[in-house]
């Protein structure tokens, strides 16, 4: 019994590490491609006269995109591993590679398609942006797919989750996409995309679409964006996913043996309570440190 718990805990720790790396890679990849939320501004910019050199990867939004990337990688790994007898680690890597290549094809067609769909605003298709950014996209998508495929496999094999690991990879892919969209994209959208606006405020509606065109040296492109977001947004996304994977596995492994399984539920609820209290403290801190934008009339 103790051995199983130790083995499971070790696997959970490894899973948490894989998830952290995968989460960071996911957010960086979505910054390279300017995907989902912040992309609405990149889409709007030519219409308000702000031409740009960002990538415009409008592939369905991050949760769905990572859902299909990770589940395809895991499914191909399953096929290669069982049919051709290739070692599972190499299968996962090959699966992730093929899925990342497919993903990049979707990215290029989206870039070309969106810009052609708004050709009347005069935004050109830059082939050099396509050629230089897409390989970075493939690389980070590969890391993300491999990380998520690997920990889905471990979850199925070592922790005993009954779903087959392609289905697990799809579910975790949607979760990592949601995490990247909620956490990492804010760093890109509110901070880097509007770097020339004052720090410490949200984006007024009137400023929508007026994104930064000129970078630190030369014109801003999506490589600069990823180079900036890797310092805060991406690690935070990775941390969020790693904590989710680890906390959920940890409470299930250690506490299921108490109170006929209710131990794990109580542990989970306690964790939720701790996070809610932490949020309240954070909320109070921001109100006190930053202060109001205007004073009360009364």
């Amino acid at each position, binding site marked *: 019994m103790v051995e199983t718990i130790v083995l499971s805990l070790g696997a959970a720790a490894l899973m948490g590490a894989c998830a952290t790396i995968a989460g960071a890679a996911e957010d960086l990849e979505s910054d390279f491609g300017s995907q989902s939320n912040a992309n609405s501004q990149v889409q709007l910019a030519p219409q308000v006269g702000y031409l740009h050199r960002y990538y415009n990867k409008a592939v369905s939004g991050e949760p769905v995109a990572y859902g299909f990337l990770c589940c395809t990688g895991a499914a191909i790994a399953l096929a290669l591993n069982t049919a051709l007898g290739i070692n599972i680690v190499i299968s996962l890597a090959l699966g992730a590679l093929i899925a990342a290549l497919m993903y990049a094809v979707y990215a290029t067609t989206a870039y070309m398609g969106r810009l052609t769909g708004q050709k009347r605003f005069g935004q050109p298709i830059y082939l050099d942006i396509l050629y230089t950014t897409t390989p970075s996209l493939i690389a980070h998508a590969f890391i993300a797919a491999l990380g998520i495929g690997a920990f889905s496999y471990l979850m199925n094999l070592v922790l005993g989750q009954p779903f087959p690991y392609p289905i697990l990879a799809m579910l975790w892919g949607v*979760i990592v996409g949601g995490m990247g969209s909620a956490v990492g994209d804010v760093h890109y959208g509110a901070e880097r*995309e509007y770097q020339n606006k004052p720090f410490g405020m949200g984006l007024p509606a009137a400023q929508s679409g007026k994104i930064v065109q000129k970078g630190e040296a030369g014109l801003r492109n999506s490589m600069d964006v990823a180079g900036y977001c890797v310092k805060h947004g991406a690690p935070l996304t990775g941390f969020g996913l790693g904590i989710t994977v680890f906390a959920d596995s940890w409470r299930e492994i250690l506490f299921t043996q108490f109170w006929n399984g209710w131990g794990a539920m109580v542990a989970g609820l306690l964790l939720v309570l701790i996070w809610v209290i932490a949020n309240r403290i954070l909320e109070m801190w921001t109100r006190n440190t930053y202060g109001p934008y205007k004073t009360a009339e009364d």
Partner: protein
Amino acid sequence: MDPITLLLILVGITIGGLLVGVGVHFVPVGGAPAAMAQATGIGTGTTMLAFSSGALGLISAGFTVHDIYSGSLKGAYPNFAPSLNDGTLLTASGIGPNLGAIVLVIAAGIVGSMLMMVILAVMANILYAFAIAVPLVSAKVKYDPITGDRQDLYVTRGTEGHGTPTVALISALIGGLLAGAGGAILYLALVASKFSVPTAAFIAIGVFFVNSVLASYNITGTIEGFHDPKFKRIPRAIIACTIASFVLGIWAIAIVYLGVV
């Protein structure tokens, strides 16, 4: 297959789908504007945010069903495995002895879903607090209904709020609770009908998607939670999700009637 079992499965699927649809309305969705610190809420689309939390609830429920069926909890709930094998879990005589197990599975779905929701919201808040340096406020109410904090002074002029304040967070937890419970009930109803585990999981995902998308059509964009005026649209979603889940349930019990295996 006796009619009571079929009816219970149908009721299970309908209730599961309905809970999902209702839960989606509680989740604070900021959508694309939230990623620009222009709106309160979590910066993902409605459908996929609800699905992310439901996904973790489903994984958690799957774990628990497996534990009770053949894992470490087998001794604590001895009636569960035979009921599942015979397909008698959802009968008049099967529910009673297995009530503890059923409640545990639903609780697992709830806890998984709530955990995902709170981590999504709070990690985003950490980023809003330190990278964007904005307070966490809503522009839809003047005073936070739960904490009583003044909101409108702390909202950037021209935006609809930023971050996820306490009222939105509590609303998110309620949404996670309902969506997770719905997902777990769907999964349990399907596994009790002797569908294989992956089939049951994926049909549950399919029904989850249908209800989640219909609810997001009702919301049409962004919603901040139960304090948002758009929340009053919920009766339409209740009718829509009940009908949709009922029809999907009819297909499911037709498969069960013809023989699942």
